[in-house]
C-alpha cells in the first residue's frame, strides 16, 4: 500500500514536471517574444516603407527582364540607385535600424557568436577573402570590386526576415542593410560584430 502511494506521489511530481513546468517556461518566453516583436515592429514597418518606395521608383524605369545586353542591367541599376539616393537625400544612419532594433540585433549577434555555433559562424565569415574594409555610409554604392562576406546562415535564422529586395551584409564589423537591386547601403549598424 505504502509503495503504491509512493509511486502515485512520484507520478504526480513527474506529470507536474512534464506538463506544468514547460507551460510556465512558455509563459515566461511569451513576454520576451512580444517584447522583441514590439522592438522590431518599427524596423519592419520602415523596411516595408522602403521597399514600397523602391518599387514605386522602379516602376518609373523600364522593366528589368532577363536580357542578353549587360548594359541594360548596369544602366538600370545605376538609374534606380540615382532615384533612391535622390528620394532619400536626407536619410541618416538609424532611419531604418531604429534604436530598439539596433540594440536587439546587437544582442542577437553577440549571442550567435559565442560557443561552438558561434565559432562556426565566425569561420563562415573568416573563410571569405579578407579585404580592405571600407567605411560605409547611408546611400553609398556597395563596392562591387570587393568580395562579399557570407552572412552566417545561423544568424539569419534569428534576425527579422527581410523582403527579397534587401539583404543583411557584413562589411568588416559593420552590419549593412543592402538594397540588392540598386546595390546601395540603405542603413547600417557600425561595430555590430563583437
Amino acid at each position, binding site marked *: 500500500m505504502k509503495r503504491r502511494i509512493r509511486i502515485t506521489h512520484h507520478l504526480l511530481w513527474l506529470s507536474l514536471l512534464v506538463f506544468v513546468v514547460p507551460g510556465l517556461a512558455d509563459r515566461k518566453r511569451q513576454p520576451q517574444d512580444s517584447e522583441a516583436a514590439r522592438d522590431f515592429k518599427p524596423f519592419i514597418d520602415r523596411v516595408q516603407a522602403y521597399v514600397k518606395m523602391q518599387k514605386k521608383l522602379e516602376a518609373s524605369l523600364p522593366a528589368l527582364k*532577363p536580357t542578353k545586353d549587360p548594359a541594360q542591367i548596369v544602366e538600370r541599376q545605376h538609374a534606380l540607385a540615382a532615384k533612391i539616393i535622390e528620394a532619400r537625400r536626407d536619410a541618416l544612419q538609424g532611419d531604418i535600424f531604429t534604436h530598439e532594433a539596433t540594440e536587439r540585433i546587437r544582442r542577437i549577434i553577440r549571442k550567435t557568436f559565442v560557443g561552438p555555433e558561434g565559432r562556426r559562424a565566425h569561420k563562415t565569415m573568416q573563410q571569405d577573402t579578407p579585404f580592405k574594409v571600407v567605411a560605409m555610409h547611408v546611400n553609398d554604392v556597395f563596392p562591387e570590386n570587393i*568580395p562579399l*562576406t*557570407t552572412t552566417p546562415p545561423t544568424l539569419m535564422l534569428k534576425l527579422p526576415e527581410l523582403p527579397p529586395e534587401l539583404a543583411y551584409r557584413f562589411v568588416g564589423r559593420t552590419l549593412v542593410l543592402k538594397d540588392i537591386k540598386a546595390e546601395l547601403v540603405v542603413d547600417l549598424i557600425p561595430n555590430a560584430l563583437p
Partner: protein
Amino acid sequence: MPTMRCSVIVTCVALAAISLPLRAQELTLPMKKDSVRFAVIGDMGNGSKEQYAVAGQMVAYHSKFPFDFVIMLGDDLIGGKNPADYQNKFELPYKPLLDAGVKFYATLGNHDVSNERFYKLFNMNGQQYYTYKKGNVQFFVLDSNYMNPQQLAWLEKELQNSRSDWKICYFHHPLYSSGAYHGPSVELRHLLEPLFIKYGVQVVFAGHDHVYERVKPQHGIHYFTEGASGELRKGNLRKTDLTAAGYDQDRTFMLVEIAGDEFYFQTISRTGQTVDSGMIQRAAKTAASRPKVRPGHGGLPDRAVAKAIGVELTRAPTAAR
C-alpha cells in the same frame, strides 16, 4: 656505349613528346546514347589568358564530347561588372560554345553581384536560386552567399517534390574542402547536409577554393570542388583523409556524363591533361546500398583505402594523380 645510351634517352624523350599530346585530350567518358552531358567550371570570370586557355580546351573537347550545357559554380565575373567585363570575362572566352548553342547555368559567388541573375546567358531567370531538369537529372542551384530561411525552405520543398533519379546541387562555397586558403563551410554544411541526406542528393559541386578536389563520399554524397577554371592557388591543396583526388598545379574544368544510373566524370587541365576521372554508380534506395566509385586518373590509391572508407572499387586506379 655512350652513343647507345644517348639514343635511348632521345627515343624516350621523343616517345614522351609524342605520348603527351596523345594523352592530352584523351576522352575517358563513354558517350552513351541519350546521356546527359555537361561541363563544370568555377571561379573562372577573371578575364585572364588562363581562363581563355581553359575555355579553348573546353571547345576542343566539345568537338569530341558534345556537351549541351555548362554549370558555373560562381565568381562568374571577378572584379568589375561593367558591360565590357561581361564581354571579356564571359562572352568572348566561351563564344565558340555559346555559338554552338551550349547553355550556361550560373550560381552566384562572393565576387558576383545579385543583378547578374538578370543576364540572360547565365540562365538564372532573375532568381537568386533556382532548379532545372535535364533528362533524369534535376539540378538545384543555391546562393551560398546568403542562405536565408526562405532559401532553405524553398530547397526542402523542391527536393521533396523531385522525382528525378539524380539530384545534383551546386553553389559557390564548398561544404568539404582541403583548400588551405578558404577551407570548408562547416556552418553551411550543418544546415544543408541533413537535407541532402534526407532527400537523396547524390552529387554536390562547389567552387571558392581555387583548386580541384574530389572528396571521399560523405554519407553517400559525392562532393567536388572545381574552383580553378580561371583562378588558381597553386599548391594550396592540403590533402587530408577526406581527399579522394585533388589537383592544384594548373587550371581545370570537368566533363560529366550521366547515363542511367551511372555518373561519369573527367577532370581536365588547362593543357588538356586528364587529372581525375571515374564513375559513380547511383545507389539503389535501400539502407544497405553503398556508393560505388570507379577511379580513373588520380582516383583512389588502392583497394585498402577504398575498403577503409567503405566504398567499392569496380576497377583499379589507372594513373597517379
